[in-house]
């Protein structure tokens, strides 16, 4: 806690200032903003249709006409990377949000509810966690077919157990705290206690954890698309671009680079941002992990 906390607005401002004082944080923010900008304005920034096939221009190297070159069907890779960024970031943000909501709700129920429900839910979380991500993805795609929805479901299934467990543990501790007893003794109902007293105390750390998980989510999407389990061709996705370039890696390495570099940049950007956020909000953790 810091002195400026009496005014929430000022405290938030101070946190932002401290974030911008960390070189790594500035670097992370820059990369993330760059990627977001590219994804949001993909339509304006790309000169070519991302899916337009042009056999005459296939396997062209990077040039002023095609900043990142073209692939085996003559599609402009720069345009495809920008549009692929849309998919990567929207999947990452949407599925993280969904995991957060579901994780928080399940965690609160497990932590505050009766013991048998808690045990049942822990068993459920642990059984999901025991599946390797790729096997889980394969199983789901076999069931539902490859699609963006399948990617989102895999991400949510992978993330929720961890989030719910964190919320559950903290809820268990808060359940015994005196201010919860005080609220109970003032006639607050269970939903009210969870919403007003438990939630604000538990979501902060989880948000930081989630921002550090975004790179993992991006990697899952790219990985599934690479394996053909994610978006269907010809929709541009970084993982799909990687796959396109993979077969021709010896002669035309720029295709793989065009698919790989944005994954690396975004992953690094969110990782730096997440770690700096953690340090800024919880200075005690600095230098750990």
């Amino acid at each position: 806690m810091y002195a400026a906390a009496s005014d929430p607005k000022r405290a938030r401002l101070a946190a932002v200032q401290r974030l911008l004082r960390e070189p790594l944080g500035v670097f992370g923010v820059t990369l993330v903003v760059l990627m977001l900008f590219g994804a949001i304005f993909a339509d304006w920034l790309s000169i070519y249709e991302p899916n337009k096939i042009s056999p005459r221009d296939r396997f062209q190297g990077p040039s002023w006409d095609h900043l990142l070159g073209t692939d085996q069907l003559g599609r402009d890779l720069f345009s495809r990377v920008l549009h692929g960024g849309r998919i990567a970031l929207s999947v990452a943000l949407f599925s993280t949000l969904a995991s957060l909501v579901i994780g928080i709700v399940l965690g609160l129920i497990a932590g505050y509810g009766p013991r048998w429900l808690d045990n049942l839910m822990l068993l459920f979380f642990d059984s999901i966690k025991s599946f390797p991500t790729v096997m889980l993805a394969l199983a789901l795609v076999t069931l539902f077919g490859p699609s963006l929805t399948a990617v989102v479901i895999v991400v949510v299934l992978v993330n929720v157990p961890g989030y719910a467990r964190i919320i559950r543990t903290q809820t268990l501790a808060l359940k015994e705290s005196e201010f919860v007893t005080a609220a109970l003794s003032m006639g607050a109902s269970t939903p009210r206690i969870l919403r007003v007293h438990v939630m604000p105390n538990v979501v902060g750390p989880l948000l930081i954890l989630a921002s550090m998980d975004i790179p993992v989510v991006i990697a899952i999407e790219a990985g599934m698309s690479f394996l053909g389990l994610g978006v269907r061709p010809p929709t541009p996705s970084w993982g799909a671009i990687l796959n396109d370039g993979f077969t021709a890696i010896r002669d035309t390495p720029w295709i793989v680079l065009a698919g790989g570099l944005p994954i690396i940049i975004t992953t690094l950007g969110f990782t730096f941002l997440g770690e700096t956020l953690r340090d800024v909000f919880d200075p005690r953790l600095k230098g750990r992990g």
Partner: protein
Amino acid sequence: MTVLAIENLNVVFATEGGDLHALRDVSFKVPEQRIVGIVGESGCGKSTLINAILGLLAENGRIASGSISFEGEDLAHLDDKAIQDLRGPRLSTVFQDPMGALNPVISVGRQMRNIQYRSDLARAEKDARSIDMLRQVRIPDAAQALKRYPHEFSGGMKQRIAIAMALMMEPALLIADEPTTALDATLEVTTIELLKDLQAEIGCSVLFISHHLGVIAELCDDVVVMYAGEVVERGSTRQVFGNPSHPYTARLLDCDPARQSERTRQLPTIPGELPDLRRRPEGCIFAARCDRRMDVCAAIPPDIEVVPGHVARCFLAESQ
């Protein structure tokens, strides 16, 4: 009028070692606009009693028999929702630890507004009421205090804020669970005086739990002495302290450091320890530690009325 009347209350906890009889035939009354103190050593059932009144007994605990009548309703047989509706507006509580009683991540103003969630007042009016309450508990610069967070206040101030919150809905009964135990001596005195003033102003009754005899003597009109889940003696503070009729009360008073008239190297204690309530001894609950034990104490002693309103559960007590 009696605000709270507890009669023959028995509370039992199911534990692995068998049933634990936490409260046994507890009876006492809290009359309107009176302050009743409950005194007893740790583990005597004070907290269990509060939780039973509030309907917040742990899952393994239950009210086996008896009644808790509060403003004409029997809390022992009321469903959870009905008790929940009474908690806050009619029946409110201040707890021991002022550090933990306030939510650390919510401003004091929002917490006080939260308490009034049942009323339809506009936000500004609720805040005005909060400021008014904070002034009454003598928080300086009350309007500014609403914007602050609990960690910005001292322990004594936090406890006063907790008291303000508890009295905000003008309850009929305030339960104060050792509200001064965590405070230092000077703060204890001011908090006691504050409670007394507020009680007179709001006109509520107070059930004041403490193990500090001096505080009880200072604050309370009536006193209930508890030992190992039983009420061993109850009556007006003057009667009980002036004419203790149960050996436990007498020994307890002897042990109060404030009553020591001469210097001693060792403060007096009551030898022995609390009985295991899972295997309750036959007869008088205090017999094992009592220095005036008799053969007849192998049977459970009756409640003997020494003078009207002053009752002791002991064969030695005599009606006058």
